[in-house]
């Protein structure tokens, strides 16, 4: 029962149910494509604004049709496959990077009514259902898994091109994505720990409802203490290969990185996947940390507010990603690795331990300050130890280099 706990699938499955599921497939597919189209335009326009330029302004009002024009153009471009490329893998790679991007979006709740004990269900053609394509009990794992599969797309693209720059780009990509996935996963575990479920719907449910003091929402952003959120955003940016972590396609060093040898619609597929992943990653952040489509309803039909809240929160993070790109210079490779392994992973791991301890303390009715205080001290001590170990290793390496030269 991979589609999970959706009330639509709980009862008898007749034609209407199948049609509703098909409709959801179509809508989420189209929604994602349109979102990507708008995202590319939004990014180009906003980035232009932030660097005192105008940006696309020729196709349609405010250049909003520029992406469409580019897409059509890509179809008519010459499709080159280098002689030394591994043809089968070269053709496969763009799809390997695009299909996971679509898959991930399937488990994102994009709407629903989360007030009045409605559990996020919405009435659609007489059937109660959730506004998400699928809600597998392992939703979060699916997200992590498909982001790992996407690495294969990037890696195989570079490897099969039979060319040095793509190969360098893809080696960077695999190293970067593997190391940041650890931090990403650890910060997700904090969320899962508190929600008590891997289903994205349950995670949203756990964040719905009025929060602390009626003002601060019960989002995981607050509940997990901000640190996992910050780690997730940074690791997510790295996972997306977006600036400042875009070493994979560093134009100044690697021409186009892993997709240097790609042209025509194959190149467009990579591009599409990249922006689709940006949209999806923002949606994941919203789902995991900002309560997804859950939010107060004010007037009008209550099903309207779910998608509205979702889009508002999504837009916030899309803006953030563009803002990052417009502001931050690219990391050097060793800085990237240092940040990933020496800062993010220890921090995420330590915070996870702290959260787990607090969780147990609450279950066992232990005194919270008594647990958190020593726990914090242990973490700081461990971090100091780690730091001194890193510094010693660095010093030894420097001595070796000096002796060598």
């Amino acid at each position, binding site marked *: 029962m991979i589609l999970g706990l959706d009330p639509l699938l709980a009862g008898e499955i007749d034609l209407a149910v199948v049609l509703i599921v098909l409709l959801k497939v179509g809508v989420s597919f189209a929604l994602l494509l349109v979102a990507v189209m708008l995202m590319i335009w939004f990014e180009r326009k*906003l980035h232009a*604004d*932030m*660097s*005192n*330029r*105008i940006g696309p*302004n*020729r196709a349609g009002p405010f250049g909003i049709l520029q992406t469409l024009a580019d897409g059509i153009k890509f179809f008519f471009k010459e499709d080159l496959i280098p002689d030394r490329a591994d043809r089968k893998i070269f053709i496969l790679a763009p799809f390997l990077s695009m299909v996971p991007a679509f898959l991930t979006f399937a488990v994102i709740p994009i709407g629903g009514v989360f007030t009045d004990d409605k559990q996020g269900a919405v009435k659609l053609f007489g059937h109660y259902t959730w506004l998400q394509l699928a809600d597998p009990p392992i939703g979060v794992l699916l997200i992590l898994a498909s982001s790992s599969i996407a690495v294969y797309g990037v890696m195989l693209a570079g490897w099969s091109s039979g060319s040095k720059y793509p190969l360098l780009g893809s080696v960077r990509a695999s190293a970067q994505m593997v190391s940041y996935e650890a931090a990403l996963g650890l910060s997700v575990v904090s969320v899962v720990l508190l929600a008590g479920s891997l289903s994205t719907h349950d995670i949203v449910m756990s964040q719905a409802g009025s929060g602390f003091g009626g003002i601060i929402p019960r989002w995981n952003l607050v509940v997990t203490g901000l640190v996992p959120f910050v780690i997730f955003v940074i690791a997510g940016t790295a996972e997306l290969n977006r600036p400042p972590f875009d070493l994979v396609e560093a134009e100044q060093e690697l021409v186009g990185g892993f997709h240097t040898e790609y042209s025509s619609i194959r190149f467009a597929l990579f591009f599409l996947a990249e922006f689709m992943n940006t949209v999806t990653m923002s949606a994941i952040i919203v789902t995991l940390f900002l309560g997804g489509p859950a939010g107060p309803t004010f007037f009008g039909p209550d099903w309207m507010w779910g998608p509205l809240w979702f889009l508002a929160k999504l837009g916030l993070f899309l803006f953030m990603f563009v*803002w990052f790109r*417009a*502001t*931050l210079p690219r990391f050097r490779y060793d800085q990237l690795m240092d940040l990933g392994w020496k800062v993010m992973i220890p921090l995420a791991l330590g915070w996870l331990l702290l959260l787990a301890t607090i969780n147990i303390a609450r279950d066992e009715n232990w005194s919270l300050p008594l647990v958190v205080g020593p726990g914090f001290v242990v973490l700081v001590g461990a971090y100091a130890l780690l730091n001194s170990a890193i510094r010693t290793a660095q010093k030894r390496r420097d001595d070796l280099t000096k002796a060598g030269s």
Partner: protein
Amino acid sequence: MGYFDGFKITFGKLFKGTRSGAVVTVPYVKDSGPKREKPVRLHGRHVLNRYEDGMEKCIGCELCAGVCPARCIYVRGADNLPDDPVSPGERYGFVYEINYLRCIHCDLCVEACPTEAITESKLFEFSFTNRRDAIYTKAELVVDDDGLPRNLPWEDWSDLEKVAGDSSAWVRATAPSGSAVYEGVVGWSGELGFGVKEPELGQTASEPQPEAAAERDDDHDDHGGHH
């Protein structure tokens, strides 16, 4: 909080009308009325000039093809027929082609040309849609009887009148006709088939007087009669 100052700057740029958000790029000319003034030395599409009597200036010497760093020029010379010469001299440019997919508009061909046959106009809006159109043949490059370049269907020359008078963009590093008088002087010639550029600082409008110019004028008269 030095880390976040950068974010403040980029966010501030979002607000147009403020000094930090002032847009520095300008839209393409067609959105904002008439075309913009072209810089005096703009290098655009080439023209092959003719003398006032209609004779072609090109003598088919292939110096332009030899000097071209992009190797975009292909020239083949042929002997002039004595009774129906194309250019004043022994030979003329029988085939003359410029491939604009390769041309970098460096103007070295203009520098190399001994007879001021090839110059660059200020016309740059020519977006051909296939590779065949990108290769301009002699028939397309030679100026027409008015001394103006031929307007090909894909070229936008709506401001031709404005740039025609000042379109050669031609500053020679050497004497136009190899005159020793001009050694070490940046030469300038007022005599061109298409457009005349004003002399720049340190240049005079005087023609290179010595033999070379005189000879050429003689040639002129000889063949002009036949034409």
